[in-house]
């Protein structure tokens, strides 16, 4: 049985374990129908031209993990930003781990999607927001919606800000030979509220994992959201991340994506500007080696006037790694005075590595400022010589230059300990110890 059939048939088993009377279940049923019609995207589709899911579909994934596997904090501590205090929503093989988590209901709700989807007190929020910005058309989003049951639920009321950043961590323990995870997150940040979130998927063994995640973020008027995605997973872990963001007047949402590992990673990052004076920022650092593949698909839809969007993605590709950057910007006719910037710079450090980069602009308004630039290059030889002439060996000199190249993206990370962590990951990825924390 192929993966699609297996998923469709397991939907019935899934229904035995959820409340089919809840209105959310109508949403799930519509979604499974859409997935059934469309199936997995193929390379024939323009948006999937450079990323093939064929091999993934050959894997016999377990869709519901059979047993729980407890993790010791000390064994996974290094995946947390443990230098600082954080709220934590932690899942082990898709199942919530209360032992590793630290949730709260103190003025804000930082808890579980499973609770939000079942308990009456959350119903008003679910009714207004659940599946409202996520695509009903895109098949993998529909697949996630159909099986939506667990994930992070974050609700920040008006004028509030949680006392500390929130970490969402997904561990897979290798309990199953191959595991499919479909976390579903909902993040609602009300007027003038603020939140910082760090998300990470981590496979702890060499068993296959596929994560098909959907995150919906709603930023109300003047809300501020900082979202950091750390993608440094095992070589047998693949991720399809679908993030949808709805922004209202004067809100400020920044998403940083750090892609350093995993087998196949596809980031679908979609911003919808439903208001004026909105700022949307997407930044990414991608450093790949071996046969890793990362595909960044971004979309910013400028729907109203006077908004800005900023995209800055840096990529460093070594070995036989491959990358894709596809940045789509739509400016509606009424969205005058839009400022849309997009930058994608890449360095290829191996002959076998490759990157496909493409801006896609659909501009229907006339009074807009829109700039975009893609570059593909090698390391600057003069700069390399400069560093070497100071006694820094070539390998370390190259690493410093790559770090400098990516630095612009790092400068906007607002959690210092996270920045240090990212720097360490970069040094690790580049295989150097520079004798100081980058």
């Amino acid at each position, binding site marked *: 049985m192929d993966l699609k059939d297996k998923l469709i048939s397991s939907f019935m088993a899934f229904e035995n374990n959820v409340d089919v009377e809840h209105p959310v279940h109508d949403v799930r049923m519509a979604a499974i129908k859409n997935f059934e019609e469309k199936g997995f995207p193929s390379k024939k589709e323009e948006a999937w031209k450079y990323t093939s899911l064929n091999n993934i579909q050959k894997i016999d994934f377990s869709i519901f993990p059979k047993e729980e596997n407890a993790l010791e904090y000390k064994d996974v501590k290094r995946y947390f930003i443990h230098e600082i205090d954080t709220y934590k929503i932690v899942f082990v093989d898709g199942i919530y781990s209360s032992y590793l988590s630290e949730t709260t209901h103190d003025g804000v709700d930082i808890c579980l999607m499973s609770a939000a989807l079942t308990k009456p007190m959350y119903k008003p929020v679910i009714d207004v927001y659940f599946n409202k910005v996520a695509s009903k058309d895109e098949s993998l989003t529909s697949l996630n919606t159909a099986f939506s049951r667990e994930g992070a639920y974050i609700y920040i009321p008006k004028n509030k800000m949680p006392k500390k950043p929130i970490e969402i961590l997904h561990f897979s323990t290798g309990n199953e030979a191959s595991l499919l995870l479909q976390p579903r997150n909902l993040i609602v940040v009300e007027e003038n509220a603020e939140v910082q979130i760090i998300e990470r998927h981590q496979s702890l063994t060499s068993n296959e994992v596929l994560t098909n995640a959907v995150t919906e973020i709603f930023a109300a008027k003047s809300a501020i959201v900082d979202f950091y995605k750390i993608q440094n997973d095992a070589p047998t872990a693949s991720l399809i991340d679908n993030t949808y963001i709805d922004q209202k007047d004067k809100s400020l949402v920044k998403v940083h994506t750090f892609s350093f590992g995993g087998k196949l990673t596809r980031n679908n990052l979609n911003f919808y500007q439903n208001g004026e004076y909105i700022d949307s920022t997407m930044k990414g650092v991608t450093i790949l080696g071996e046969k890793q593949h990362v595909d960044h698909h971004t979309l910013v839809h400028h729907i109203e006037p006077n908004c800005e969007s900023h995209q800055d993605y840096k990529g460093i590709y070594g070995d036989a790694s491959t990358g894709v950057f596809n940045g789509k910007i739509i400016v509606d006719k009424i969205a005058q005075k839009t400022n849309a910037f997009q930058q994608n710079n890449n360095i290829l450090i191996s002959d076998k590595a490759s990157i496909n980069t493409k801006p896609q602009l659909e501009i229907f308004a006339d009074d807009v400022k829109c700039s975009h630039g893609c570059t593909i290059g090698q390391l600057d*030889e003069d700069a390399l*010589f400069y560093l070497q*002439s100071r006694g820094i060996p070539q390998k370390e000199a190259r690493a*410093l230059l790559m770090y400098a190249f990516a630095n612009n993206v790092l400068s906007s990370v607002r959690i210092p300990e996270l920045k240090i962590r990212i720097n360490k990951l970069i040094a690790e990825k580049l295989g150097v110890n520079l004798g100081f924390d980058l």
Partner: protein
Amino acid sequence: MLKINDLHANVDDKEILKGINLEVKAGEVHAIMGPNGSGKSTLASVIAGNENFEVTQGSIELSGEDLEDVSPEERAHKGVFLSFQYPVEIPGVSVTNFMKTAINESRKAKGLEDMPAKDMLKLIREKSELLEIDRKFLSRSLNEGFSGGEKKRNEIFQMAMLEPKVAILDETDSGLDIDALRIVASGVNKLKSKDNAVILITHYQRLLEYIVPDYVHVLHNGKIVKSGGKELALELEEKGYDWLKQETAV
């Protein structure tokens, strides 16, 4: 200390250095002057080991050791230093961290442990005072957004930190105002000793009033066409370089 014999170097199959002979002994200061495009920066780069230039003939010896096939970093470890005409910007890496890396890599190459943090701080303080560099300056990203003068001063700060045997200063004076020039020159003079040597590449006599050379060489079209004492620099200042064209035409 540094001995250059019949050095020829190419870039992209074009010959730029066409037979340079130069000997610099410990304790000496040599000035290399000459019109734009004569090959001064190329000579400096080739001494420092820049692999973009191909040495086709001749040799460079440092304290009797042939530097052929010695990488730029190894040359640095052996005591070669080049103050760049155009220093490179390295965003995200502070001056301090850069110097820590450079010094510890050099120590590592010599089989030494990393310099203890306390000693490093002391050294940085001492050398930054020598060049009247503000502490805040040291935490800025290397050369990023530095003015021309700041970049040059920072180059000499690096020289002070690394204490090379042979320092080549490529147009360190250009872009410096008179106060900065004085600070930089006095820094270089303080670093001078009987055990090291300095090669000053410059267009102007101005710098040579502060750092007095033992020898002055004129480089033209990839060759040293004239050498003399410090009075040659004055002569060049007066006459310009037009006479070179006639002389080489003859």
